[in-house]
């Protein structure tokens, strides 16, 4: 893992000291709220419906046991004993007091963490595949590049006042677990003629106007990463619409300008910028890469694992859903579900964080990850230890065997917390998960991604959910629109709306009708919901959602 150097340490400490002084000046009245707001946002501090909210970056989702413990300590000392992991690999604390924020930031700095650029119109936390470094299918670990991008983008003088926020995601595998096609810049590590580089996409994004990112460069040599990204952001910084907040993201710039013209401008700017990058960035990258060297794996026999897998059906079910093949056969990647049916997606109590930290320390080479799907990953676990891990997770209420199934739902905080929300999302997720737990249909339904957002800004990624749910305020009442067929993977697609929305108490039954229809009409048990949808289209689901509509139409005709 990356360790702060003296520069990082001094920089983060200085920012904490600055913010401490800014908070003092806000409290003593020398700063107005209008003056203070941009300062607090630069440090990840929001004011939400019921309290302040502090959003802390977990760069590319990688976190050590010591850092996880500190998050638990912060939750216990200054918050309500839990934290909420987000769809951008951040953690949010929902109940801090203004006066405590500088102390929280100092506690974060003690473990090389911060909340810088987790808000505002800047380059946000750079996200990456949560299986990075452990996945069997990756060309290279994307995290050294993500760290290089983090260092480059942090406090980048030219990019502190972009037209709008800017999000970058990196993946090292062709199978996209990082939703790079829904990011302002998406980077995929590729190889061409033995040389390593990137496929560069730009202009993806969800929100009010969802767009799938387009390829700007099919192959960018590794050494050109920073100047090329700088060229893209620089072109966007000039062209991006500052006149209309809703048209200010790069997706609109790409859409309005056209990808060919964007590519021409980027290449032109790149030609100007490239000579300024004399290789120092590559020296830094080499230093970063050394810090991401894989741990020295212990070779472990598999007999205890094989015995437990054969004997214990609960363990077997958990392994089948939550454990993924590791680059080494005697190790595995464990996805710890933060989606126990009935619980809040993405929430972990301080006690659970402590358990996860202890497991990472004891068995997992001190590494944890946070996924954009709001789960925690133990990326390197000897298979021999899986039975002990499962036992410990069960005791901590973390052994839900539902990764990738109907109850593994992404949900934004929605109107239970967020000042921007137009409806609740958390209780909808809780009720869907609980309902399908009662029906015991999860395995019958199979792989399914339900994603819920409580407003049009789409933090819950509903556009790329196989089933997407968008909560809106319709004439003072919560109303939920459904989209079908979205996909956040390498086959990215934006879901299509089924039709009129559903009231709060109608949305769970509506989802149930969709999934019962799917089970009835799929060709084989192996055909997933998404495959069935792609084969048959919207009509059978519409018929199930809006019974009587056909009759009405027939009657009218």
């Amino acid at each position, binding site marked *: 893992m990356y360790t702060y150097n003296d520069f990082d340490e001094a920089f983060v400490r200085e920012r904490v000291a600055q913010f401490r002084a800014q908070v003092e000046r806000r409290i003593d009245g020398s700063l107005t709220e209008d003056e203070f707001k941009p300062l607090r946002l630069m440090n990840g501090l929001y004011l939400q419906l019921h309290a302040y909210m502090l959003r802390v970056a977990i760069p590319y989702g990688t976190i050590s046991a010591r850092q996880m413990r500190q998050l638990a300590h912060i939750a216990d000392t200054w918050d309500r004993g839990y934290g909420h992991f987000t769809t951008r690999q951040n953690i949010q604390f929902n109940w801090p007091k203004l006066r405590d924020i500088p102390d929280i930031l100092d506690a974060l700095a003690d473990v090389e963490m911060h909340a810088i650029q987790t808000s505002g119109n800047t380059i946000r936390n750079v996200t990456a595949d949560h299986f990075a470094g452990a996945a069997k299918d990756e060309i290279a670990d994307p995290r050294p590049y993500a760290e290089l991008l983090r260092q480059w983008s942090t406090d980048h003088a030219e990019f502190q006042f972009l037209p709008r926020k800017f999000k970058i995601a990196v993946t090292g595998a062709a199978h996209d677990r990082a939703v790079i096609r829904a990011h302002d810049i998406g980077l995929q590590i590729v190889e061409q003629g033995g040389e390593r580089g990137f496929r560069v996409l730009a202009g993806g994004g969800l929100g009010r106007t969802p767009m799938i990112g387009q390829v700007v460069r099919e192959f960018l040599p590794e050494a050109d990463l920073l100047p090329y990204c700088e060229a893209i952001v620089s072109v966007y910084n000039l062209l991006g619409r500052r006149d209309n907040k809703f048209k200010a993201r790069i997706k609109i710039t790409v859409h309005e300008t056209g990808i060919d013209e964007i590519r021409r401008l980027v290449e032109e700017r790149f030609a100007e910028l490239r000579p300024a990058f004399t290789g120092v960035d590559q020296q830094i990258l080499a230093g970063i890469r050394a810090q991401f060297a894989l741990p020295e794996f212990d070779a472990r026999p598999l007999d205890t694992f094989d015995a437990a897998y054969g004997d214990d059906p609960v363990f077997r079910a958990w392994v089948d859903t939550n454990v993924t093949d590791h680059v080494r056969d005697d190790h595995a990647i464990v996805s710890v579900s933060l989606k126990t049916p009935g619980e809040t997606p993405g929430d972990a109590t301080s006690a659970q964080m402590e358990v996860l930290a202890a497991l990472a320390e004891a068995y997992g080479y001190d590494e944890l990850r946070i996924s954009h799907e709001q789960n925690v990953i133990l990326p390197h676990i000897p298979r021999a230890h899986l039975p002990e891990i499962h036992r410990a997770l069960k005791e901590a209420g973390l052994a839900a065997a539902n990764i990738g199934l109907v109850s593994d739902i992404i949900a934004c905080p929605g*109107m239970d917390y967020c000042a921007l929300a137009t409806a609740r999302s958390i209780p909808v997720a809780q009720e869907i998960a609980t309902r399908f737990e009662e029906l015991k249909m999860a395995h019958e339904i199979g792989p399914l991604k339900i994603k819920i957002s409580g407003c049009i800004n789409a933090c819950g990624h509903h556009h790329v959910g196989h089933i997407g749910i968008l909560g809106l305020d319709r004439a003072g009442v919560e109303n939920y629109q459904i989209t079908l067929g979205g996909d956040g993977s390498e086959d990215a697609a934006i879901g299509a709306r089924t039709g009129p929305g559903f009231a709060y108490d109608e949305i769970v039954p509506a989802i149930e009708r969709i999934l019962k229809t799917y089970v009835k009409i799929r060709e084989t048990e192996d055909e997933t919901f998404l495959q069935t949808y792609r084969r048959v289209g919207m009509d059978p689901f519409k018929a199930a959602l809006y019974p009587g509509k056909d009759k009405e139409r027939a009657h009218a005709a």
Partner: protein
Amino acid sequence: MPRKFTPKVVTANRLMEGDAVWLTEDDRWSPDMAEAELIEDEAVAQDRLIHGQSQPDVVVGVYLADAKAGPDGPEPTHFREAFRTRGPSNYAHGKQETA
């Protein structure tokens, strides 16, 4: 024709704690909406809003929210404002804890 004025309360979040509060007739900021001053007149509402906004050392984000008279005092008419009087629905945190 101008739209009919609907009754309002002045509401905000406290600077230090960040919790929701409502302006009372005797110029306090109460965490209990039922104690709020229900304003039936548009000109008075604007005046009270300005009064609220003039206290940036106490509250943040002052605005007028729709409300109606209830047996114990003003009540919210929109679900967002109702949540602000209670807290989130996933945990018994916020105002519902002490209510």
